[in-house]
C-alpha cells in the first residue's frame, strides 16, 4: 500500500495513462470526419436558448463565446474519453442511461390520458385501497401527571363523574383539567390524524367506542377525558370523489408496468449466461469468511 503513495509511482501511472489516451486517440483521429467538431447554427441556438431559460435574456457575445468554448472543450474531451472507452464500466454512466431508458418508456406509457372506463376498472379492482377512514369529532379534558402526581387519575375519574351527571351538558369542560398546548377540540379526524397528535394507543381506544364521555384514556402526554360528539363511519368513496387520485395512481401503475414490460421485451433478445459455479464459489467464500 505504501508503494501507492510514492510520487514516482503516481508519475509513472499517469504517464502510462496519458500515453494510452494519445495512442488510442491518434488512432481514432486518423479519419478526418471524427476529427471534425462543428458548432452549427442549431447548436449555437440551443446554447443561447439554454442560457435564456436560466436568465430570461439572451447571452451577450462574450457569454455566448465562452459557452461555445466550453462546449468545444467538452466535446473534445468527451470524444477522447469515448475513444478510450471511459464510458465503459462506469457505474454513474450506466445508471444514468438506465434511468433515461426507463423515463422514456414511462413517458410513452402515459402519453394518452386514461379513459373513465379504464379508471373505473382500475378502481373496481382495488376498491378497498381507497376506503375512506372513519372520522370522529371530539373534545378532551387533560390531566397532567407531572403536575398532579398520583392524584391525576383519581382527579380525572371524579371530573368524569361530574361531567356525566351534568344537565344540561357542561360548559367549558376542558377547564376542569389542566392546560394543554395543542387543541381542546378536534373536528372530523381520522385514526392517523389522532395518532399523529396523541399517539397510537389513544387513537385506537377512541375509535373503538361510541359517542359520549370516555376515560380516563392515556396518551403520550398523560391522562384525558374524552367527549366524542360525532362519528362518521368509514366507507368506499364514489368514483367521482377520487377520480383525480385514480388518475395519478393509474398512471403510476402504467409507468411501473411499462418499465417491466420494456425489460421483458428486451431481455428476450439477449442470451444470458451466468457462471453458476463461480457464483457458488464466491457465495461460499463470503459465507465462511463472515463465519
Amino acid at each position, binding site marked *: 500500500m505504501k508503494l501507492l503513495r510514492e510520487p514516482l509511482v503516481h508519475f509513472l501511472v499517469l504517464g502510462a495513462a496519458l500515453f494510452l489516451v494519445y495512442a488510442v486517440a491518434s488512432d481514432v483521429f486518423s479519419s478526418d470526419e471524427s476529427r471534425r467538431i462543428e458548432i452549427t447554427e442549431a447548436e449555437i441556438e440551443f446554447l443561447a436558448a439554454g442560457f435564456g431559460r436560466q436568465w430570461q435574456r439572451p447571452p451577450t457575445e462574450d*457569454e455566448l463565446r465562452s459557452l461555445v468554448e466550453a462546449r468545444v472543450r467538452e466535446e473534445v474531451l468527451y470524444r477522447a474519453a469515448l475513444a478510450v472507452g471511459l464510458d465503459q464500466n462506469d457505474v454513474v454512466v450506466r445508471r*444514468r442511461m438506465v434511468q433515461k431508458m426507463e423515463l*422514456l418508456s414511462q413517458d410513452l*406509457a402515459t*402519453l394518452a390520458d386514461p379513459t373513465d372506463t379504464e379508471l373505473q376498472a382500475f378502481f373496481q379492482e382495488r376498491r378497498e385501497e381507497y376506503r375512506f377512514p372513519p372520522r370522529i369529532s371530539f373534545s378532551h379534558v387533560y390531566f397532567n401527571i407531572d403536575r398532579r402526581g398520583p392524584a391525576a*387519575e383519581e382527579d380525572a375519574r371524579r371530573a368524569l363523574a361530574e361531567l356525566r351527571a351534568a344537565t344540561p351538558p357542561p*360548559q367549558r369542560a376542558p377547564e376542569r383539567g389542566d392546560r394543554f398546548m*395543542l387543541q381542546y377540540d378536534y373536528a372530523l379526524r381520522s385514526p392517523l390524524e389522532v395518532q399523529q397528535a396523541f399517539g397510537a394507543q389513544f387513537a385506537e381506544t377512541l375509535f373503538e367506542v361510541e359517542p359520549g364521555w370516555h376515560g380516563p384514556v392515556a396518551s403520550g402526554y398523560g391522562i384525558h377525558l374524552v367527549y366524542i360528539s360525532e362519528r362518521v363511519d368509514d366507507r368506499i368513496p364514489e368514483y367521482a370523489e377520487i377520480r383525480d387520485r385514480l388518475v395519478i395512481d393509474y398512471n403510476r401503475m402504467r409507468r411501473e408496468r411499462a418499465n417491466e414490460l420494456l425489460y421483458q421485451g428486451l431481455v428476450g433478445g439477449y442470451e444470458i449466461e451466468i457462471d453458476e459455479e463461480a457464483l457458488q464459489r464466491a457465495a461460499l467464500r463470503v459465507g465462511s469468511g463472515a463465519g
Partner: protein
Amino acid sequence: MRRSLGISVAAVVMLVLAPPARAQQTVGLPPPDSTVADAFPAQLHYSPYAGRNFPTNVYWGDTHLHTGMSMDAGSFGARLSPEDAYRFARGEELTSSTGLQVKLSRPLDFLVVADHSDNMGFFPRLFAGDPQFLADSTGKRWYGMIQEGGQTAVQVAVEVIQAFSQGTFPEALASLPGSAAYRSAWETAIDAAEEYNDPGEFTAFIGYEWTSNTAGMNLHRVVIFRDGGAKAGVMEPLTTLRPAGSDNPRDLWNWMQTYEDRTGGQVLALAHNGNLSNGIMFPLVDSFTGRRFDRAYAETRAKWEPLYEVTQIKGDGEAHPFLSPTDEFADYETWDQGNLDLSELKENDMLQYEYARSGLQIGLQLERQLGVNPYKFGMVGSTDSHTGLATSEEENFFGKHSGAEPSPERYEHPMAKVGDMVYESWSMASSGYAAVWATENTREAIFDAMMRKETYATTGPRMLVRFFAGWEFTAEDAMNRLPGAIGYMKGVPMGADLPARPDGAAPTFLVGALKDPYSGNIDRIQIVKGWLDDDGERHERIYDVACADRAITNEGRCDGPVGNTVDVARATWRNTIGAPELLTVWTDPDFDPSVPAVYYARVLEIPTPRWTAYEAYRYGITMPDEVPMITQERAYTSPIWYTP
C-alpha cells in the same frame, strides 16, 4: 418509542410516585381566568377554543430532499423518483432503493424535493402528438398504439427502443429538432410536485438545490417556490458552472429577482451546512472579493434568505463547543473535520463564521456597520437525504444516501472517503425536520410562514414549541389555557422583531414546549441570548428558563442534569424523568436597552437511544466504544431580535 405509549393509565400514575414537579411554577393551575374569554366573547359556548386567525397548527416537513434525479444520489444507487419521495412523505409504504420496506411513523405535512440543479440534464421525450411526427407512417402507427392505451401503448416503448438499437429508427423522426424531443429534469420534477400537491392535506413544494461548492467550500442553497408549475416552469434553475451558471450567491439572488420580475411569483432560498464551508457561510467580509460587504449585499441576502437549515444529517449547525465552551450541550452531532470534500482541514478561527449562534451575532455586527443585518434568519431542520426518503427519526433512519441504508455493516462503512480522510457512517446525524406555524396546509400559507420565519428546527422529534416576546408578559400568562392566544395578543412570535420599547421595560418571553407523544419527555427550555457590547464585541449567554423536576439556580441554570433512563442494549428508555410539557414566562435579567440583542429558544429532550443503538439492537451487533449510542434531541426556534 411505541413502548412508552403502551403503558396503561395506572402504570403511568405508578411511574410518577416520586414527588411531582417540585420546581414547576405552574403546580396546580389556578381557576380558569377570564383574560381569553373576555378576548373572545363570542365563544362562550361548549367549544370556546375554536376559530381564530393566528396560526394554531404546526406543520411538519423536510425542505431538502434528494431523489434518484440528483446525479450523486443516482450514482449511489438511489432509484426512487420525486414521485416516490412525495408518496413516502405523505405516509405511504415504499420499497427503498436497497430493497427494504419503509414507512414513516407519521406522515409529513409538506416536502420540498430539492435535486441538484447541476447535471439535472435532459431526458428523451420522443413525441407528444407532434404534427411532424404524425406525418411519418411509423410515427402515425406508434401514435395510434399509444392512444389505444394499455399493453399496446407499452409495446410502443419496446418498438421505439429496438428501432434505436437496430438503427431502423425512421429518419424523418430522428431529424426533428433535438430540443423539442427532450425535456429537462426540471420539468419532470415540476410534474411530480404538481401531481402530489393536495391543498389542505399535503403540500408538495417545487424546489431545487443550487450547489455552489467551489474548492469544496459548501455554500449550498435550496430554492423553494411558492408557485405552481405554470410559473416555476418558466425559468430553468440556476446552475453553478460559468458562464451559464455561477457559484456566487449574489448571482443566485439575481436569478431569484429575475424570476419574480418575470413571473410575478415568489421564491426563497435557504443555506445549509455552514459547518462544511470552512468559514465562509456567515463571513464578516466578502469571501468572493475579500472586501467589506456593502449595504446592497446585506439587503439582498436578508431579502432572499429568511431561513437557515440549522441541523441535518451532515452535522448539527447550531453551536460549536470551541465557540461556546460553557455550553454543555454545544457538542451535538458535530462535524468539524474540514470543508465538504475534506480538501481543506478545519481551523478554529473558521468556526465562528459557520455556526448559527455566532452567525446571528455577526449579523448584529454587520448591521452596525451597514445599517442592515444580512444574517437575520429563522431556523429549520431538514434531512438532505439522497435516498428519496425523508427519514429523521432515530428508530427509522435510512441514512444519507442509498449506500448507507440500514444494514448490519453500515456503521463501519465510510459514508464518504477522501484520501485518508473519512466520514464515518456512524457519525451521520438522524436529523432533522422543519416545523412551520401556519394557518393551513397549502403552498401559500406555509411559504408565507417561512418568509416571516415563524418556524423552528428539530433534530427529528415533533415536539410543539411556542416562543413569544413582548414587554408585558407576566407569570400568570404561563398559566393561561391558550398560550398561543395570549402570546399573539401581548407579543410577537418567533422570527419577529420586538416592537418599540416602552420606557423602563425589559423584554419578557412566553415560551413553552409540549413533548412529541412518540418521543422523550422534555428536559428543559433554554433561551440563548446573543448581543454586542459598546465596542461591538460579540457575547452570548444561555439561560435555563424552565426545568423539569428541578429548581433553577441563581446562575440561571437547572439544578443538575435530568438523568438518563436509556437501556442501550435493548434500545429503550422510560419517560419517568423530564416533563410532558413546560411553559413559562421569563424576563431578561441582564437587559441593556442600548445594545442590540438576539434571542432564541432551545428545547432539550431527555436522553433517548441514538439510531446506532437501534441498529445494534436489531442486528445484534456490537459497535466500537467511539460510536455514540445515546442522544439528546432538541428544537431550535427562530430568533426574536431587539434593536435599540
